[in-house]
């Protein structure tokens, strides 16, 4: 469903019959990059330099330059500790479902990316942490690992070279916070998924205290293509600071929800209209979320924004995981925010005071406003509380993830909030009323 005008690579193989098998994968250039590296004896440093030059940025949410992250790993000659690559396949950011497509339809592409990453960082063991609900994806990757092992693409002396590497898989148990890289490592170690304060950073003190790199599935999936086709090819797509293609999962009030491959920098309108077939039933666009729930609401007037790191940052949002959520004119942004806020309250690990109490407080206020018990001063209180939670005031960015959409609601949809308060009820006619989840605490008498 990609537009003909853009060159694609990420999803090309997934359209083939039996794309998940080693057979089909290898017939379509699979493992070619790995073979070349091992046969021609590229040095790990060369691989890292190539990734640096390509400008690849992480697809897990923060958009951190991947080559730079890899270069943070300590020199293996001086630091002889075990080292790990951890693959973040926990994909739980509301709206996001792109890693799932890759794992289900092209698991060997991920495995090749992992192996090249391990080669570049002189790592001999990788862990894939898969979201617990992704059973099918888990099975597909597990089967692909077996296939790869039988074909000597994995294990000892891969393809007859001196490079050996193992991949282990782990199932999450349903906590969003275990997608945060340090919470994930705690969880992998068998503990509660409580994020760790940084410093120390994973490159120095990661899984079991050893040097570790954490990368998202889609990030690693890009790697073999870059190795195979070169940095220049990669930079021919996307923008200068955000090169390459990205998978956008678009959901909500659209005609054709799904996962689409587009170049970074494409306008959000193009994604909405050309990929997703426009707003559902020809209705009017009211609000949209550009990159997963944590990136907040943007008004319809900003649908022309380019989907890249800089443009969205300038709009006080983020590219995040590239998961667009579309709200049409029948949606209530206050209720939508209440649902998101309840999600963050439910998923906060509870270590940091501001996040534990703040996510609950925001939810309570939004619940009151949506149910006609709001006060005008609640609007500023929402922003003020969100400012107390973030940025950078807590151990991990979950507090930021709750604060950013709260700020965006007050910034862009203040009118709608005020109308809730003035009318003493939700003004959106077809809004289904109070959010489906029952309120956690009984409402109180409030000073008007």
């Amino acid at each position, binding site marked *: 469903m990609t537009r003909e005008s853009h060159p694609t690579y990420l999803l090309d193989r997934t359209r083939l019959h039996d794309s998940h098998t080693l057979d089909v994968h290898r017939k379509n250039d699979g493992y070619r990059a790995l073979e070349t590296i091992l046969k021609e004896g590229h040095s790990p440093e060369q691989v890292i330099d190539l990734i640096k030059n390509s400008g690849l940025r992480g697809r897990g949410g923060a958009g951190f330059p991947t080559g730079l992250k890899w270069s943070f790993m300590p020199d293996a000659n001086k630091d002889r500790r075990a080292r790990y690559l951890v693959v973040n396949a926990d994909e739980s950011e509301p709206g996001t479902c792109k890693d799932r497509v890759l794992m289900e339809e092209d698991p060997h592409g991920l495995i090749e990316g992992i192996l090249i990453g391990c080669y570049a960082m002189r790592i001999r063991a990788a862990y894939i942490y898969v979201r617990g609900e992704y059973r099918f994806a888990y099975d597909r990757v597990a089967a692909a690992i077996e296939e790869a092992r039988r074909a000597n693409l994995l294990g000892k002396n891969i393809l007859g070279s001196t490079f050996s590497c193992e991949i282990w898989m782990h199932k999450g148990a349903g*906590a969003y*916070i275990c997608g945060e890289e340090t919470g994930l490592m705690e969880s992998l170690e068998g503990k*509660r998924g409580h994020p760790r*304060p940084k*410093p120390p950073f994973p490159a120095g003190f990661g899984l079991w205290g050893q040097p570790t790199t954490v990368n998202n599935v889609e990030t690693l999936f890009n790697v073999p293509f870059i190795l195979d086709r070169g940095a220049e090819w990669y930079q021919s797509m996307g923008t200068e600071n955000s090169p390459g293609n990205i998978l956008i999962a678009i959901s909500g009030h659209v005609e054709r929800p799904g996962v689409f491959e587009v170049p970074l920098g494409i306008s959000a309108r193009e994604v909405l209209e050309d990929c997703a077939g426009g707003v559902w039933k020809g209705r009017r666009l009211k609000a949209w979320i550009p990159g997963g729930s944590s990136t907040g609401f943007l008004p319809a007037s900003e649908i022309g924004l380019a989907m890249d790191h800089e443009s969205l940052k300038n709009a006080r949002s983020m590219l995040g995981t590239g998961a667009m959520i579309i709200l049409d004119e029948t949606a209530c942004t206050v209720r939508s925010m209440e649902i998101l806020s309840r999600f963050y*309250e*439910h*998923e*906060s*690990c*509870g*270590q*940091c*005071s*501001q*996040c*534990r*109490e*703040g*996510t*609950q*407080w925001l939810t*309570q*206020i939004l619940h*009151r406003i949506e149910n006609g018990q709001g006060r005008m001063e609640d609007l500023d*209180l929402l922003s*003020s509380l969100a*400012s*107390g*939670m973030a940025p*950078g*005031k*807590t*151990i991990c960015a979950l507090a930021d993830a709750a604060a950013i959409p709260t700020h965006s609601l007050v910034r862009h949809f203040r009118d709608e909030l005020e109308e809730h308060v003035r009318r003493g009820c939700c003004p959106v006619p077809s809004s289904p009323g109070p959010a489906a989840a029952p309120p956690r*605490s*009984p409402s*109180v008498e*409030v*000073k008007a």
Partner: protein
Amino acid sequence: MTRITINGKEVEADPKKPLITACHEHAAQVPMYCYHPGLTPVGSCRICQVELQQGEIPPRIVVACRTPVAEGMVVNTETPQAHDARRQCLEFLLKNHPLDCPICDKAGECDLQDYSFSEGQAEGRSVEPRRKLEKRKNLGDVIVLDQERCILCSRCVRFFEDVTKKPQLTVSGLGSRSVISTFMDRPLTGNYQGNVADICPVGALTLSGFRFQARVWNLDKHLSTCGECSRGCSITVEVLRRKEVKRLRPHFNEEVNKWWMCDHGRFSYARLNAEDRLQGATLHQDGVPHPVDRETGIAAVVDMLRVHSGAYILISPWMTVEEGEQALAFCHALASPPRLLAPPTNDLKDDLLHTGEAAPNRRGLEGQGFQTQSRDDALSALAAAECAVLIGERITEILGVEALAELSNSIRLIIFDTHALQVSATNVCIGIPNAAERTGTWINVDGHAGRIAAAKPAPPGVASLTRSLEEIRAALAPVAGEVGS
């Protein structure tokens, strides 16, 4: 040492300690809840936020307890940004706090209360209902948990992980549903539970024995030493109305007990408050005690010792070094060898504090020249003695009242103890102060000197042991041909 700048002042800081230590050492007020110098820092409560400038990076807010000290750091604890960050954090912590300070045992020494007082807003901005949780949850016999007051700092969790090395507590539940709990609600065990009430920065963990016993600001605190084993932990003896010891708490001592003490020591204060104390002295006839004043008792002792020089003398390992000094002179005057009763042992020995040797000053008294004698040897010696003097707190208790009851009536038995010994062999008992009623020094198992403090007055008619022994020695001096003082 590393040079850093705190609030505009260049200072030296220990690079091995977190920034918060340097702040505190240089009079910068930074609050803390999750941080405790004796526990692994986790940096989770976020109350210790300060502004840090390092090199080219623009100033940012960091938690002082998880930030290592580095050369050239510029720290500001008082910028509006730092104040705001802390105030906001405090507001979140108070959002669900029950504010039941009037009935909270921690009130008056609560870190949350103190910091709210100095920094908090006068008016709360929350109109939401507060979290309803369990207010009285027994975590075993020692500790009661109030889940509503808990701020989830996890100090108690880390105490068992880091200090006793036997994890017992955890945070269960996620986010705003988090509570402190034990595995499957099993009761806490072990000899160190009480410490978690001390380190709890709020009133969430209280000692079941101290609940509703006193307002802490009415307690007089006296720096002292625990006498329940030869570790001699530094403690405070906390007394209500100059009368009743309400609480013993550990006092930081780097060499001896750091921040901790054991429950056995902590709850030994009932003994210090015992009601049936010997006041003045008693003279015994056929086992029946007749109360007399101390002077009459002393005169009776002097009469007896005039005819029994060379009496068998045994002292208690609870005696202080200062009392030992006087006892040594006393033995010398009577030409008796100085003997010390061996401390009892118990099965509380562990790797942390308790030594299993249940008395505080054997090392000090042996160093002064006393010969330690086992209880069995002491009892055989008593059985053969014509006259014996047993001196010091708990001496009759260690020898055993039953064993002493078997002594023949022909022995002249003189006792200096806190309680009268009601056995037929007894002739005279002189009352003495207990460990909370006298000052002095105990030397612990490693040779560290610990001072004990007179935290409350001795019962009426009781004088110090030193004074009584000195008076007797003086009265005997001409007869025994020794030079008195």
